[in-house]
């Protein structure tokens, strides 16, 4: 996927001016938090489960090499094949090789963020294989050639007109004068069209929410059922999974599943939670004849042992972005790559480099809401701050910021000089704004005064007044 993170500020300006997007954001914004809150209120043990979720993931990461080997052995025992891939290139090549060997012409796909990260679709297309996204949101994005703007609601930025327009453009075999009276009609058309694709596909590609070492299973969680059709009907099923999806046992996965849907959509449980273990057994009446797991590192192992290891606990529930006021101001595309919101602001610099994604960890007020809802308690603001530290050390932060900071720090370390400087500052500002009590513009403060007035200081500093009162014996 093309990287547009360096243009974050321009992306934001465009997003703020995009009325359609702003309307969608405004409409969706209250829904996620209230649904999650209701689900959490309904499960008194939720906070304890968050601790458990964090601990399970920490335990797995501390022994990841061990569990990965057990996992792979168990996949193979059940008749599956594991393809270990260090890089995106290797993963793309592995997927292509499986498809080519199967003689595949069409490939159906369940929603998978790692597939976006790897750019699987473009790679298959370049080799004459047609990938078809089957998650409704991903399907329309594929038609429109857009990336997802959210990790679980990829197309929520589009409205009904967008859907209709896109469907009319590509479903040209259907009567041009058909009417879409309601959302249901859009859904029905997509369902019919995709049903044909499911039946025709040679290979089905899904992601994985979890991998289970004990059983060699991959787990997908969906509401539509598209992931299940994708992996059940074609001859070959490929599960794409990054290494940090692993957990040791079914019980471990189960505890995390209690957190996942509640944190994501506010459901108690998603509609379909499916555990796949190996290929079709000889006596089975359905299911794929081949089961492949493409196991991907692509930068994860480099996070282990660093201050960013905690990010590998992420179960991609999207709670952090669903509760993020910055995300709901700028939308997902502003972040410029696959993963938006707070989790993206930490993960994206890890995966594409902080020199590319430097804005992301800076564009946060550190309000802390994300951390407070994260089901596996990832300290997202702290990790974003670590990225700022890396930028500061590598002199990637803007020089004006560094200079201002240095001047301020020089004074702040010298209390007496600091008193004099602040006193002058307070006086000057106070004098400038003496008539109205505020300024509507001020040189060098354009960032502030573009959208707000600047209330002016009372006029003297606390310490000046305090000293005066002490001298006058009034304290």
């Amino acid at each position: 996927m093309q990287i547009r993170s360096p243009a974050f500020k321009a992306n934001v300006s465009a997003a703020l001016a995009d009325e359609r997007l702003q309307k969608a954001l405004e409409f969706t914004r209250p829904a996620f938090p209230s649904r999650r809150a209701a689900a959490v209120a309904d499960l008194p043990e939720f906070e304890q489960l968050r601790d458990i979720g964090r601990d399970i993931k920490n335990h797995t990461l501390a022994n990841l090499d061990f569990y990965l080997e057990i996992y792979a052995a168990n996949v193979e025992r059940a008749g599956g094949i594991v393809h270990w891939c260090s890089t995106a290139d290797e993963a793309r090549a592995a997927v292509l090789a499986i498809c080519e060997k199967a003689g595949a012409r069409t490939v159906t796909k369940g929603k998978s963020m790692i597939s976006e990260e790897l750019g699987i679709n473009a790679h298959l297309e370049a080799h004459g294989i047609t990938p078809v996204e089957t998650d409704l949101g991903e399907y329309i994005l594929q038609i429109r050639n857009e990336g997802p703007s959210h990790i679980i609601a990829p197309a929520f930025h589009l409205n009904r007109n967008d859907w209709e327009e896109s469907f009319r453009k590509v479903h040209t075999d259907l009567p041009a004068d058909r009417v879409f009276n309601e959302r249901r009609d859009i859904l029905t058309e997509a369902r019919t069209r995709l049903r044909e694709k499911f039946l025709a596909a040679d290979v089905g590609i899904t992601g994985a929410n979890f991998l289970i070492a004990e059983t060699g299973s991959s787990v997908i969680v969906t509401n539509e059922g598209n992931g299940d059709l994708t992996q059940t009907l074609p001859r070959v099923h490929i599960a794409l999974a990054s290494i940090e999806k692993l957990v040791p046992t079914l019980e471990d996965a189960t505890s995390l599943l209690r957190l996942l849907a509640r944190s994501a959509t506010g459901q108690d449980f998603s509609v379909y939670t499916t555990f796949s273990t190996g290929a079709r057994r000889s006596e089975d009446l359905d299911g794929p004849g081949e089961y492949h797991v493409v196991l991907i590192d692509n930068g994860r192992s480099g996070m282990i042992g660093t201050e960013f290891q905690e990010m590998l606990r992420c179960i991609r529930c999207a709670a952090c972005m669903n509760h993020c006021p910055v995300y709901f101001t700028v939308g997902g595309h502003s972040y410029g790559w696959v993963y938006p919101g707070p989790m993206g602001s930490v993960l994206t610099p890890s995966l594409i480099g902080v020199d590319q994604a430097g804005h992301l960890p800076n564009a946060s007020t550190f309000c802390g809401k994300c951390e407070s809802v994260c089901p596996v308690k990832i300290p997202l603001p702290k990790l974003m701050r670590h990225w700022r530290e890396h930028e500061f050390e590598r002199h990637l932060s803007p020089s004006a910021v560094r200079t201002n900071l240095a001047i301020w720090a020089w004074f702040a370390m010298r209390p007496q000089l600091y008193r004099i400087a602040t006193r002058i500052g307070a006086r000057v500002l106070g004098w400038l704004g003496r008539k109205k009590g505020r300024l509507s513009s001020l040189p060098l403060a354009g960032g502030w005064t573009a959208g707000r007035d600047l209330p002016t200081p009372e006029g003297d500093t606390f310490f000046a007044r305090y000293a005066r009162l002490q001298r006058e014996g009034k304290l």
Partner: protein
Amino acid sequence: MSKDTILNAIRRGLKRGPLPEDQALGLRARMAAHPRHLIPARSRIDRPGQIALFLRNIEKEFGTFTRVPDLDAIPEAVADYLTANNLPSDFAMAPHPELAAIPWSNRPLLTQRPGRAQASDLVSLQHGYAAVAETGTLVLPAAAVRPTTLNLLSDTFMVVLRASRVVGAYEEAWDLLRAENRDERSGGFMPRNVMLVTGPSRSADIESTLELGAHGPRRLHVVLVDDDPAAFA
């Protein structure tokens, strides 16, 4: 080889070589014991309470149910449901002995087609292996007698479930599978596929508004057979 590259990179990060044998032993023991974590209190209740919780959750998730006293009552319940919803009377049915034992001939107008589902099937009837009261979740392990396509391809998905197979928490369903299932291929207990199904298919991808029946069934109907004396209090 990439496998070694990945494993070595992880070990470098963890600042150690391969896991020492004594620690590996501990981890293997943990997997063998597969300890349960906290199980929410909501399902730690008596049998009648669990059944009621299960049925409440089925409805919460937009499913429906009928309770019948025994297998003999199933044909009528199925026929009534299909008529009430204007649905065709023929359906794909899991080739499970328990379903075959139902006296379908009581209702000659119903037609069952045992086997996997076809894309053209409007209605399917699945055999419920177990269910979890905690969230109203059906547990449907794939088997020759329980084809996966039945769960997915039809518009209306019916499941016959015995009340004695309703457990409180997911962990108890895993224990059933562990105790009862042996998979020839893997030597373990996991069949090719286990679907946990909670309500009919749905999507909120169009304007963040929920619609039922996205790709999978639009209707989910449970026929619960009251075979569990403990469930009547």
